[in-house]
């Protein structure tokens, strides 16, 4: 409970900071709604009926009605602007206020969090639920304020006119609550029982409806039969479960809806009111009518109020996720650290070992290596040998478990992370384009480019071998990239994307260039062109090139062969061939195919 409250206070603080007046108006609005209903339907009706019953002069009733009319219609004026303008504009801002914090965090989160599927799922859930948790919170505020307003206004009215009525309301409410709780539990149990079958049902539907599986189903009709059968069985089980509980459910519903509710309030309570009017003459007609009409609302608002802790508890679970995510302390601190010295320096890895968690096995073991400025180093090995992990450490996406990496003689940990990353150009196999102009995709930050800047971007693209494609683009650097939200946008092919990625490295004038299997998904011509572009890019830079296709790495100054996380061979292509070890074997297997006809 404490947690639930503190979670909602946390959310309130963020929202209030972003839009204080809006949040206050949300509260006022909920109050206004119920308050005017009370004025119109309780006070108003009672007053005019009273006037009619006791033959008061007409002008009294008329004035009251006109005042109410003016007040309510007047209250609709700000309400219109609130609903049609303010809310529409402010809600997206509230969402952003929370998501901004999450984005900042996501960007400094340790990359290892992404490798942990449990953590990653929580994280995705937190992001995707953040908007809904705000919606739910606003709804809760609305609910709570409305119920409290109604209970206060209605309660006072009953206390003044018929305190016994409150007893009826409370009794009915308590009994209904009890029956509803039982009923919910019954329903919940059925849901739990049905859950696996529903999952099965959804799974089969997905397979049949998604295009991803369309080919498979057409090629393997027996699989289809199996799935159909499972689908039928799942539905039959659900029917069985539903039938089993239906008796209990009907009984509880009868208690909840009729015996504790309609019967108690519409038969017994009205019988009691009639008794007071007809037999005791203790109540006038008009009050009796209004009392009979308002009991339902009063009881309903009590039910709402009891719902609130349940709903708040549910919402709190999601806020928990958001907060847990925001409270995460990344191991790699992003904002501190010193500048990186100018110019290309020596990169030294000494006695480095790495594992993803203290329980897991070492992915890299006792790696030492030195890269002089401008040296080209190829890292080769089979899948799972640790190549990619090693370069991730060089980029400081992880910190070593043991040993250290230094650049310009300083441990990478001492540098400001952003500044260090700015000195580095990286090309992967799966490079992403971002929704924005081509120029933005090259410099990748939020500044508005001036003419000089545009020239630099263009030069970078020309150097990366993109100029032919660039000439064909009508809008040139302003071409909108990806069709994510611009239908007129351009989707580049794999090879083109990678050239843009290389242009990013040129634009930054990085000292270190890291290329991780950039060409494995390309057709031979595209691969060749990419290699030529990279060759150009590599001039005067320290280069790390990862590949398991040795044809692309043979010209390196030094080749490092990794196996099971260790460096097993090191040297130039010729030296390694002469050694006749693992590298030579790997080379032979690959070259064999091309040379021996």
């Amino acid at each position, binding site marked *: 409970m404490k947690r639930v409250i503190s979670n909602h206070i946390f959310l309130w603080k963020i929202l209030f900071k972003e839009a204080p007046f809006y949040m206050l108006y949300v509260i006022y609005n909920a109050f206004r709604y119920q308050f005017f209903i009370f004025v119109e339907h309780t006070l108003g009706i009672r007053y005019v009926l009273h006037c009619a019953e006791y033959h008061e002069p007409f002008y009294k009733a008329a004035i009251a009605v006109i005042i109410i009319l003016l007040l309510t219609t007047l209250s*609709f004026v700000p309400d219109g602007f609130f609903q049609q303008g303010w809310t529409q504009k402010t809600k997206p801002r509230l969402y952003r206020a929370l998501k901004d914090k999450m*984005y900042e965090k996501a960007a400094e989160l340790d990359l290892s969090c992404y490798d942990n599927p449990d953590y990653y799922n929580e994280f995705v859930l937190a992001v995707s639920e953040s908007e809904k948790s705000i919606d739910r919170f606003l709804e809760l505020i609305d609910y709570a304020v409305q119920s409290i307003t109604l209970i206060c206004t209605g309660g006072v009215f009953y206390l003044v006119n018929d305190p016994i009525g409150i007893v009826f309301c409370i009794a009915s409410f308590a009994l209904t609550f009890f029956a509803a709780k039982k009923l919910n539990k019954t329903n919940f149990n059925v849901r739990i029982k049905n859950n696996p079958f529903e999952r099965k049902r959804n799974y089969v539907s997905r397979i049949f409806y998604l295009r991803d599986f369309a080919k498979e189903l057409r090629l393997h009709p027996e*699989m289809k039969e199996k799935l*159909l059968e499972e689908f039928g069985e799942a539905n039959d089980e659900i029917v069985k479960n539903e039938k089993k509980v239906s008796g209990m459910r009907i009984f509880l519903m009868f208690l909840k809806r009729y015996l504790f509710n*309609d019967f108690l309030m519409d038969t017994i309570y009205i019988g009691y009111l009639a008794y007071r009017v007809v037999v005791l003459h203790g109540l006038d007609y008009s009050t009796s009518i209004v009392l009979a009409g308002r009991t339902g609302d009063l009881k309903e608002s009590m039910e709402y109020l009891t719902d609130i802790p349940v709903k708040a508890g549910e919402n709190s679970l999601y806020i928990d996720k958001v907060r847990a995510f925001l409270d995460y302390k990344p191991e790699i601190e992003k904002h501190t650290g010193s500048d990186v010295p100018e110019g290309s320096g020596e990169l030294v890895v000494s006695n480095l070992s790495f594992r993803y968690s203290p329980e897991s096995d070492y992915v890299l073991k006792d790696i030492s290596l030195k890269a002089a400025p401008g040296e080209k180093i190829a890292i080769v090995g089979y899948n799972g040998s640790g190549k990619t992990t090693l370069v991730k450490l060089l980029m400081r996406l992880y910190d070593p478990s043991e040993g250290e990496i230094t650049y310009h003689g300083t441990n990478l940990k001492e540098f400001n992370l952003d500044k260090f990353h700015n000195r580095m150009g990286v090309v992967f196999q799966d490079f992403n384009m971002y929704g924005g102009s081509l120029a933005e995709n090259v410099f990748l930050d939020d500044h508005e480019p001036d003419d000089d800047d545009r020239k630099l971007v263009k030069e970078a693209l020309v150097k990366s071998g993109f100029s032919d494609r660039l000439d064909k683009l009508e809008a040139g650097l302003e071409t909108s990239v990806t069709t994510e*939200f611009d239908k007129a946008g351009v989707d580049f092919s794999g090879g083109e994307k990678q050239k843009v990625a290389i242009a990013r490295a040129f634009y930054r004038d990085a000292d270190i260039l890291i290329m991780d299997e950039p060409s494995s998904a390309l057709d031979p011509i595209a691969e060749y062109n990419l290699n030529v572009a990279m060759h150009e890019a590599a001039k005067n830079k320290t280069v790390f090139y990862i590949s398991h296709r040795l044809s692309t790495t043979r010209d390196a100054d030094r080749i490092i062969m990794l196996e099971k996380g260790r460096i097993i061979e090191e040297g130039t292509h010729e030296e390694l061939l002469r050694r006749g070890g693992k590298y030579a074997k790997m080379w032979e297997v690959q070259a064999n195919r091309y040379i021996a006809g």
Partner: protein
Amino acid sequence: MKNNLYALKLLFKLSPGIVYCRGFRRIIGYAEWLFYSAFFMRYIVYAYENNESYGKIVLFLGIVGTVFAFVTVYKNFNDGYATPVCTTIVNKKLNSILFKKALNVDLRCFENSDFYNKYTLAMQDADTRLIETVDVFWGMIFGFIATIAAFSFVFSIDKWAVLFVIFPILGNFIFNVQLGKIEFKRNEDMAYHNRKIAYVNRVMYMTEYAKEMRLTSALSLMKKRYGEALSGIGEVVAKYHLKGAIMHWLRCSFTFSFIFEGVMLYGAYRSIVSKTLSLSEYAVIIELMVSTSWILIGFCDSCMTGYKNGLFIQNLKNFMEHEPEIPEDYDGIPADEGIKTLEFRNVSFSYGEENVLENISFTLEGSKTYALVGYNGAGKSTLIKLLMRFYDPTEGEILLNGRNIKEYNLASYRRLWATAFQDHMIFSATVKENVLMRDCKESSLDDDERVISALKMAGVYDKVSSLPKGIETMLTKEFDEDGALLSGGEFQKIVVARAFATDSCGCIFDEPSSALDPIAECNLFDNILANGENKTMLFVSHRLSSVKNADCVFLLADKNLAECGSHDELMKLNGLYAEMYNKQAVNYLAVSENDWKTISEAKGKTGRIKTPAGESTQGGAC
């Protein structure tokens, strides 16, 4: 309206019970409402005024209470038994129809994003939405009847009071509809900005962007996009908010205030000044006006939702009435003579306007091996889909043993081929079932052997046998917490094993090795070739080294078969294939002689390097 009737008919066919349930539910709902607001209080106040005995009031309350006890029992039976059971039945029956339909939809429709979007809309929760449509339809019908009934009650009490009903009618059917239009337009204008926000959101949490987010300042670029979207939304809101606020005021005032306060005032006048309205009638007429207003709101909502549902039903109807060009149960003569020849004769194909393939002719002969190569996007996969008869050619024909493949029974034609595609899909079932692709509850030892040997050939048996239940292990965690999640390469190998486990005359492999490392890849190709003896075999690959051993290579370029012949012939031709090959091989070839010398020297020292085939462990060689 027509669509709603269609929905009613369809649902009635699936489960008449649910149609009645929903109908009665609506009738009872409105009847109860009208009874309480028009009769109940009126009777009691009338009894007050006429000094009826208390016993009479109690009797009345007793009768009402008893009647409603029975009504509630029926309602509860409806909600607690009939609805859940019928809903499940509808789900089962409707989906069985839709599944069969979905299976019959031509594959090219799936690839048409327009069709696919509409189709997805039609499929999403089709069962619950169909029921909702019928429910809303009843809401329209009985809402209308209830509205008329409410009017006549008001009329029976006071014929002039009925005129006040004009206010909520204006409020609902003029101003509310206008407001809906404004909101619709506003949302339409906002959609672009919301898409932008959704995009930024996705980029922020998808793993594939995580590395770049750290290495570059793309975060600030994405935040800029977000900011742009927000100011965009602000502008859209500013454009509509005045109009919206005015309509909102008109709607609320007319629907709630004018009628309510109007009737209060009018009733007070009639009751106090002209004394033509009794107190009970006055009380009832106020209550009745509130109810009428809400019945109208409900009716109006039903109409608007009914209209929206109409669009959904239209999509569903289109889909149900869709006539596939190549139905799955396409019948014809059985293809039981094996593959002697398979000929493409002047085949052209286009997805829309432009041809993807143009005038392609070639012949595959039984028990030979063919390779298909070309640029990314040259149409290789399309050609294979034509061959599998997922599509029919736009022009030209494909002949099996001299007969157009359209003449064969589709299922028996497809059974001629074993296939493995690059966009493989794994089912949430056991490894064995994923290889054999059928239910394996009753399977023989033969099956097991077949599965194991296929997995071995695909080079993934070592991995599978290391799983706790071997080939009986469930794949994916969808239904089984202990289900196995394999790497992309391993899943790919299992898909390839499907082809190995199938006893067929022909094999097709579409880039089966894209996720594998070179050693595993070349092992796989050796096995593919070994398995392909006596079979017609066609495979697609970018690695030209693995293409060399094919009997014939087809090179697709510019929508056409640019080159065709054996590797040696094509190299001699010195065209595009030779260029591709050389570019890929350049570094291997450039210094080959030198390298071979060094390698053979090295061999002299370390002994001959063995090349055992059929093993894919790391460091092993072909």
